[in-house]
């Protein structure tokens, strides 16, 4: 049985506030999909509609051929990992993990066997009798995961599960979560506002903004080819330039103040239309003023304004007739960092210029 998760034109109103507007997506079985967006973008509400804690105002939620839009949470083959873990403070680790089995009337012997196996899977064997308050944040996180997985859900829903962990632990858990998901082959729908987390773990990312989907794609597509200004700005650092589209014979450019950024001519855009372009800092190379002219390279002349050393990389701020661009350089040798005030050229491959239509 293939159980693709379908979210069809789902809208959710809370009183007069529209939290989610006409959101549709599908998640194939065994995929890791992330709903990414700033707080208040509707990602958690969308997740809660899949879990059954909220009923959509309009639209349907289906799992395979089964319409689960109005089904009670406890009847759905979904499990949720909560942001604050929501572990039962009055129950032991074993009772927490075994809760779902107890509710399904699994006999006590089988229950303790499966709890033990699940605790081994999360690499915390033998802690059944501990209290929740005796666990560290990372351990609580794993126990919450074990509790959600023990009922063998078809879809695991995770609501910012790593938000409360410190950075190092979070990075470890990201990798572990991804490995676990691949090992179990369960569909994961993951909600986060942390773009780096989304890029690290997801098969696909759905970017939400003000209750609507901005863009959906693989991490590479989202990062390398953002389609809207919002996506380019939200994911990673970038140089965002606003300007107007100018077509000149068979060449075209976006005039951004003092800088003309050449682009491929667009059939959809009219002369004079407002457009934005995005160029990632790490795609821009710094030259000494001589230029490095390959055929598709965009080369501009400017002056080094500022150099911010960050250890492995240095951010170089360059002004081109008053327009500032930031580029990122690997620091191989601190002696060769550019000096502020010096003349320079910057260049990037034209295909790394992203034209943003929204």
């Amino acid at each position, binding site marked *: 049985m293939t159980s693709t998760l379908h979210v069809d034109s789902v809208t959710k109103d809370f009183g007069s506030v529209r939290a989610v507007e006409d959101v549709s997506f599908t998640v194939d079985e065994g995929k890791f999909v992330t709903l990414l967006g700033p707080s208040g973008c509707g990602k958690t509400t969308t997740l809660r509609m899949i*879990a*059954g*804690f909220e009923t959509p105002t309009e639209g349907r939620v289906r799992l395979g051929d089964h319409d689960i839009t109005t089904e*009670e*949470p*406890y009847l759905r083959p*979904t*499990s*949720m990992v*909560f*942001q*604050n873990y*929501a*572990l*039962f*403070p*009055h*129950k*032991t680790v*074993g*009772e927490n993990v*075994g*809760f*779902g089995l*107890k*509710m*399904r009337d699994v006999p*006590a012997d089988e*229950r*303790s066997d499966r*709890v033990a196996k699940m605790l081994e899977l999360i690499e915390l064997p033998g802690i*059944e009798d501990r*209290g929740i308050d005796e666990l560290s944040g990372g351990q609580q996180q794993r126990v919450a995961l074990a*509790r*959600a997985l023990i*009922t063998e859900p078809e879809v695991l829903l995770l609501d910012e599960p790593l938000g409360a962990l410190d950075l190092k632990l979070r990075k470890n858990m990201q990798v572990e979560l991804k490995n676990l998901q691949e090992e179990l082959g369960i569909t994961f729908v993951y909600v986060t506002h942390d773009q780096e987390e989304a890029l690290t773990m997801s098969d696909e990312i759905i970017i939400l903004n003000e209750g609507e989907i901005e863009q959906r794609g693989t991490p590479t597509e989202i990062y390398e080819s953002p389609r809207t200004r919002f996506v380019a700005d939200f994911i990673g650092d970038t140089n965002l330039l606003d300007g107007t589209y100018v077509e000149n014979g068979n060449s075209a450019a976006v005039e951004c103040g003092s800088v003309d950024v050449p682009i491929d001519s667009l059939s959809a855009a009219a002369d004079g239309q407002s457009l934005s372009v995005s160029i990632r800092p790490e795609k821009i190379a710094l030259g000494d003023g001589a230029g490095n002219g390959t055929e598709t390279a965009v080369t501009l002349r400017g002056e080094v304004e500022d150099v911010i050393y960050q250890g492995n990389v240095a951010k170089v701020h360059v002004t081109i007739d008053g327009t500032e661009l930031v580029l990122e350089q690997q620091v191989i040798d601190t002696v060769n960092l550019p000096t502020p005030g010096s003349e320079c050229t910057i260049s990037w491959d034209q295909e790394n210029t992203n034209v943003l239509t929204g």
Partner: protein
Amino acid sequence: MSSQDDVAADAVRPQPTPETGTLRERVLEWADSEVFKGAISLGPVLLLLTVFYAVPVALLLIYSIFVEDPFASGLTFEHFGRFIDVSAITSLQFSELSYVRLLGRSIGIAVIVTVLSLVISYPITYYLGQHAPERWKIALVMLVIIPFWTSYLIRTYAWIPILSNNGFINSALTTVGLPSLPLLNNYIGSIIGLVYVFVPFTILPLYASMEGLDSSLIEAARDLGASRWEAFREVVFPLTLPGALAGGVFVFIKTAAAYVTPSLLGGTSGRMYAQVIETQFGTAFNWNFGAALAVILVVVVLGTIWIAARWGIDVKGSRGLGGGGL
């Protein structure tokens, strides 16, 4: 002299003179001592409790063990003996044990009222704490408190036209052709009146517990396959038990010693223990026996609560009722 004392001394007198330092230093040092600070902060409370609580209870105890006037007559346990009536027990005439039976009935009514109050409070506080819109919460809690603005006596009197044989409820019942119910001047009247008066005292602490209960715990239970009832039994009830116990103990104590409500609504079968105590003090002028009855009530109520507390601690120790499955 430490710098801290300097600051304190300056505060008392802007221009300190070293010559007068010794006395002032001693006073200030004493004022800074832990004993003085402790006495200052705890003193008023201790004084209040001593005058209004410890002394009256001590007087009760003293009255209960003297034949008549304290210290002017002999020591005796006859008043306690009159309560227990050993001859009635040895001759198996249990119906003669009127005081014991009355205390038993009072405790029984107190248990029923406590349980009913909690049963009524749970759904109300669950709604208030978990589902009520934030901006309505204060207003709804105020609705619980507002009845306190009216006299307890008047509110109790108000039940008479509601419960009496030709009152609102029975008129409504007879109008639709149902037999009328005896609701007034019996123990049902006492129970209804007491539950009405004491429900707010279980609602308020239970509301505090419910308000503090993380709603994602209930969602987690529901998500993991618990029905609404199972989520209540496994999560809501054990986690709000402290609030329920706090409210329940208070209601139990107050109900076991209830006087006004059973006097007005209880009749003969709703007669409660505190009414007998009042009779001894007010009508019979047997203060010694009245005091003995009061001491017995205090001991029995405290004993009941002690047992309940032990049970409550056990519940917590086992991490929730019915939670010890694994």
